């Protein structure tokens, strides 16, 4: 298992380098201009000077290697310095956003908390709804509960978040006035009342995303449970006189979790990636919003860095899912 993990990690390096180069080319070769969003009153000579000062006009390969060096060496050292306080970070250039002219990593660190709060909570909420829903739906297949559950998850899966989000705002913020429609990223939880405020502002985006996640995962859970419920070992367990609770929750559930855990692990990088649409609708201004305005503003360094971090997370969590698979199912051996 260990050799396998190490081999996979080593293999990941050329994969990631290749991904980073492809991302770079896609972003760079698509028509975008960091000065496009400026008012037309700013004359072309000035625009050209701005582009010059941003280094947009350098040869493409030089831009790539500059970025790669900063990404792989300088930025991790800055991160280390930030965490440990050791004075290890090199002086000089960092990856600078075109729009804000500040280090991209700081933007990402600044946005991580609200993204993890909102998207992370919604993922947990989604799982907490999905597992019981999937188990009961499978155990009582074609019952009223199953039919309703199937209907709700189909609706949750097919209705886009930009619709449910705005619908929630109109109902709960405009008409009922229960929750705020604008997320306050500067709010700090220090005591009970401020925690209540946080819950109030987080509940709508969390539920919008949570319903979406729940519908997806509950379908996997249900399908996997159904596969196992008809297996011979279940009949054996029942024949041995085990009660239904033990049969379903110990024998069947444990085996059914294998593919579900994989799905859950593979979706975790998306939590860090934020939710572009939901973040916009509720003004959460996390990683998703950072990425989308960087794309709109032609802010290449931000798009590139954020996409690369996603790529790293996806590769890592793929590996993690594979390893978990082996842990959950002793029949699987990688050596």
């Amino acid at each position: 298992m260990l050799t396998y993990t190490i081999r996979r990690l080593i293999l990941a390096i050329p994969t990631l380098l290749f991904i980073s180069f492809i991302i770079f080319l896609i972003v760079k070769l698509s028509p975008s201009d960091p000065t496009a969003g400026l008012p037309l009153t700013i004359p072309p000579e000035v625009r050209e000077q701005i582009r010059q000062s941003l280094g947009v006009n350098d040869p493409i390969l030089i831009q790539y290697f500059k970025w790669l060096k900063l990404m792989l060496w300088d930025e991790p050292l800055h991160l280390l310095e930030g965490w440990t306080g050791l004075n290890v970070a090199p002086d000089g250039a960092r990856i600078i956003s075109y729009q804000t002219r500040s280090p991209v990593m700081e933007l990402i660190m600044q946005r991580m908390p609200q993204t993890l709060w909102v998207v992370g909570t919604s993922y947990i909420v989604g799982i907490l709804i999905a597992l019981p829903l999937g188990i009961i739906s499978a155990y009582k297949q074609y019952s009223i509960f199953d039919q309703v559950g199937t209907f709700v998850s189909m609706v949750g899966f097919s209705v886009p978040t930009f619709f449910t989000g705005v619908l929630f705002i109109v109902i709960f913020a405009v008409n009922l006035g229960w929750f705020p429609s604008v997320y306050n990223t500067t709010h700090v939880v220090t005591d009970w009342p401020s925690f209540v405020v946080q819950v109030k502002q987080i509940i709508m985006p969390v539920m919008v995303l949570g319903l979406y996640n729940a519908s997806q995962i509950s379908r996997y859970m249900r399908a996997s449970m159904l596969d196992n419920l008809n297996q011979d070992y279940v009949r054996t367990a029942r024949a041995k006189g085990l009660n239904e609770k033990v049969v379903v929750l110990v024998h069947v559930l444990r085996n059914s979790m294998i593919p579900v855990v994989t799905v859950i692990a593979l979706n975790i990088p998306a939590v860090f990636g934020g939710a572009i649409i939901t973040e916009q609708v509720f003004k959460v201004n996390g990683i998703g919003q950072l990425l989308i305005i960087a794309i709109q503003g032609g802010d290449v360094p931000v798009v590139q860095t954020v996409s690369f971090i996603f790529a790293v997370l996806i590769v890592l969590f793929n590996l993690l899912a594979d390893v978990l698979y082996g842990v959950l199912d002793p029949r699987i051996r990688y050596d």
Partner: protein
Amino acid sequence: MTRYSLLLGATALVLAPAAALAERGSSGHLNIIYWQAPSTLNPYLSGGTKEVESASLVLESLARFDDTGTMVPWLAEEIPTVDNGGVSEDLTSITWTIGDGITWSDGSDLTAADFVFTWEYCTHPEGGCAQASYFDGVTSVEAVDDGTVRVTFDAPTPFPYTAFVGSESPVIQAAQFADCLGARAPECTDANFGPIGTGPFVVDEFRPNDVIELSANENFRFPDRPYFATVTFKGGGDATAAARSVCETGEFDYAWNLQIDPTILSGMEAQGNCTVVTAFGTSVERLHMNQTNPDPSMGDMRSTVAGGPHPYLTDPIVGQAMSMAIDRALIVEIGYGAGGQATCNVLPAPEAYASTANDGCLVQDIEGANALLDEAGIVDSDGDGIREYEGTPMRVLFQTSTNAVRQDTQALIKQWWAEIGIDAELRNIDASVFFGGDPASPDTFQKFYADVEMYTNNFAGVDPQAYMANWLCSDIPGPDTQWQGANIQRFCDPAYDELVAEMAATADLEERGRIARLQNDMLVQSYSIIPLVHRGGVSAHASTIEGILMSDWDSELWNIMDWRRAE
């Protein structure tokens, strides 16, 4: 017009109803939402409106423009003129006197050295300063003494109120930015995100593209202002959501740039929680009629002067008919609401520069347009419903940027043109490409690989001299200039060039007005440009906020120190 009289005037105007409550911070907290969030608070590093306006709460300039476009002294004692000796007789220098006792928010004095530094900062060749055009023609900025700044120009400059005037060229503190010159500008993140200013508010926290927290400046020169103690300046979402948060949920007090469906906005306003305010500057949505030939078969010569004139759009009769066919009032009603007025001028304001010679276009006249074309012998000779101009069927490619209002307008115009026998093929291009100016892209508005294109342009400040010089023959974009140049429709008339030169040599304001009107009429009557809508800024504020005088000539938050909450 001194600072003292301005203060008196402003006090009389704004505070009369509640003079008793005049005290700093007495109105509590103000929530502002800009649905496009500011990326930095240094307006010299980003020319975007959102950055300039958010920074205007902190950074100030010598003079600002009020809601009528009149210049008011701000950090300066008074507006220098030739009469009061502030502007030299030969119009090559202007001397500003800084008001007494003005300090930075850290308590240090504002001196002439700060202005000299600001000029050095923005004109540094490696800095990529977004507002460099404010210092065009400035050869030096010197500190005559601590309280006096002299700006010298390389040529007589009849309108010298460019550098340090308006929200786009404020003064920054020399002490704070000393190590941030040129290529080092981006390294000064703390300074760029939290500039020390002379304005009514100081930055407590800045989160790029997200939110700014500000509080009242303890060292502000007016002891009773600003009336708000703290401000949250939130960004993100979209225009409709911003309007909703002011007019429906009441979470915010002021929302900016609400270019949304006019019926939705007026429906929200009707609920009574908010007031929609507009301000008109110089923005005009217009059609440019390509005067050169954009035919794809021309290859590299497409849309260039060398490629020859357009087969029919150079004939003013054609342009006139196309203009007469358009119902501008309907376009305003459908797409712009309170934020637009039908116009026939490319230079609609300020008042002194606005021509009235072309107002006939305000009424749609399809019959007249048809008659005009028939008389000129431009008729449909092959019976396909499309007129031919000397054998060329009049099919135009009509492009603009992707935007719901623009696509509605395109569809309307296509229909009207069809009624006069001109076929339009519609095309829309993503705004970041269309306005992107990438010389390699065939889809930029400068390349103009189409017959007609539509967008909005305007100029900053109140003086149209530089703007009207856009239409010089020498300013036509082409491959030799990497497609840079502001004369987008490729209009060229030596008589117009003469007017531009005359304008540059005239100081008298009335005379300048006459020349500007002549220039406007010459452009509009060539029908190489068809003005459609005079566009204004649309914002909304909570009904409880008083003192807002929205200006499109400056930051719309220019007088935020006078804003207050009604009892």
